[in-house]
């Protein structure tokens, strides 16, 4: 992400060599990590941070296949662990958490207030597939609440759930709090009871053999720093 703020800030003493840092981040981190990249570039004007967003499993697969990533931020442990086991990444640190919201059309026309409302006849509900992080969390949340749903669809990622609700195709669905924060005009969020009990944890790690290990570590440090955490919080993430 090119930063035009770079000229206005004087370089710090720890300024890094000119280089391009490649960060692979889960799609739900999009807004937050764009800002994170800008922050790092401001501190290190010589560094160009490129963030690639995609599903965590896609990114993990690419890193396993030798993708030139320096940092990997996953939306779940499941995709980080195998890389760690094969020593393809350095030690992973949890840096954020995410909780679920019921996403509804703006203004909540169907008056959906809790998880049980999702099971109402005539309400079209979509969820994430159980295999993806948000789907696993949704399943946990629903089972905690003792609610059984027959969703119209099990989407492959949160964006698809958001899209279906925003386009009116579906009436409600479970998404991350961060998604509600990122789409204020398209969906409204309802916090279901027990949401805080089910928290998804985001690990981050420097990719093993990174040619820019120092900058990569700097990025991880930034994410974990109070400044980084403030950015994440502003996008709706919880502390790890």
């Amino acid at each position: 992400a090119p930063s035009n703020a770079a000229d206005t800030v004087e370089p710090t003493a720890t300024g890094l060599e000119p280089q391009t840092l490649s960060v692979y981040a889960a799609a739900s981190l999009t807004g937050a990590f764009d800002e994170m990249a800008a922050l790092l570039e401001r501190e290190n004007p010589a560094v160009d941070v490129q963030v690639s967003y995609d599903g965590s499993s896609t990114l993990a697969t690419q890193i396993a296949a030798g993708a030139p990533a320096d940092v990997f931020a996953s939306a779940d442990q499941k995709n980080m662990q195998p890389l760690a086991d094969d020593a393809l990444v350095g030690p992973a640190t949890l840096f954020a958490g995410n909780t679920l919201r019921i996403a509804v059309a703006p203004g909540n026309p169907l008056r959906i207030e809790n998880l049980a409302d999702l099971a109402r006849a005539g309400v079209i509900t979509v969820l994430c597939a159980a295999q993806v992080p948000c789907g696993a969390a949704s399943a946990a949340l629903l089972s905690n609440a003792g609610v059984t749903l027959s969703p119209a669809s099990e989407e492959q990622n949160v964006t698809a759930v958001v899209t279906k609700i925003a386009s009116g195709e579906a009436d409600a669905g479970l998404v991350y709090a961060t998604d509600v924060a990122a789409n204020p005009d398209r969906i409204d969020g309802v916090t279901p009871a027990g949401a805080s009990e089910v928290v998804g944890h985001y690990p981050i790690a420097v990719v093993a053999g990174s040619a820019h290990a120092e900058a990569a570590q700097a990025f991880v440090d930034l994410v974990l720093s109070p400044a980084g955490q403030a950015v994440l919080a502003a996008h709706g993430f919880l502390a790890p």
Partner: protein
Amino acid sequence: MIPRLLYLPASIGLALLVLPLAGLLLKVDWAALPALLLSPEALQPLGLSLVTASVSTLLCLLLGVPLAVVIARSKPRAAGLLRALVTVPLVLPPLVGGIALLSLLGRGGVLGNTLELAGLRIPFTTAAVVIAQTFVALPFLVIAVEGALRTAGIRYERVAATLGAGRGTVFARITLPLVGPGLLAGTVLSFARALGEFGATALFAGNQVGVTRTMPLAIYTAFNGSGVTTDQAVALSLLLIAVAVIILVLVGTRRASVLS
């Protein structure tokens, strides 16, 4: 009659197509394979895929052959335009096809609203899968058949007309048999494309077990679940490929015997 020089690039081309599939084979966990392939998680999507792809292919034939005839027999300028229109869906990235279908047939879509008033809702149904597959597969059929029609020309149709045969008769007994190989090629192509369809289906039809989870969606779901190890996704892909190869070879040799 083949210039020797051609064998080298031909082999490279074949290798480019076949070697990646071979690479896939190396990733397979052969021990776990049989159990997985016989599990309902594999067989149900496979069944749904075969059924929907067959229905889509049939739809492609019913709609695509007439469209191909109209294009092939149009004046050059009109034909060029029609052909371009028919080809466009090929360019659409998977996602965009889904968005386009939603914006037409979804709730709030132009036609979707009308249908909803009639009590019909298409998204999230098996019908949506078929529509998505037909949408992406139809161009293949049209282009293949149109090309065959154009090459076959109208000489034999003219002869049939001078013998007194009406247009319907000529179409059924002369035109169609003469483009048989092209028709078969188009059918194979559109069936293959329908079988592999993922993007538009995912967005337009969703991913519900037994209703809209076709094989490609099952593969994607498995991939998202297993991540790096990709074992299950690869195994399912293998199943899909194996079924496809069997069907293609069966049709292919049938086609060969038609041709010879």
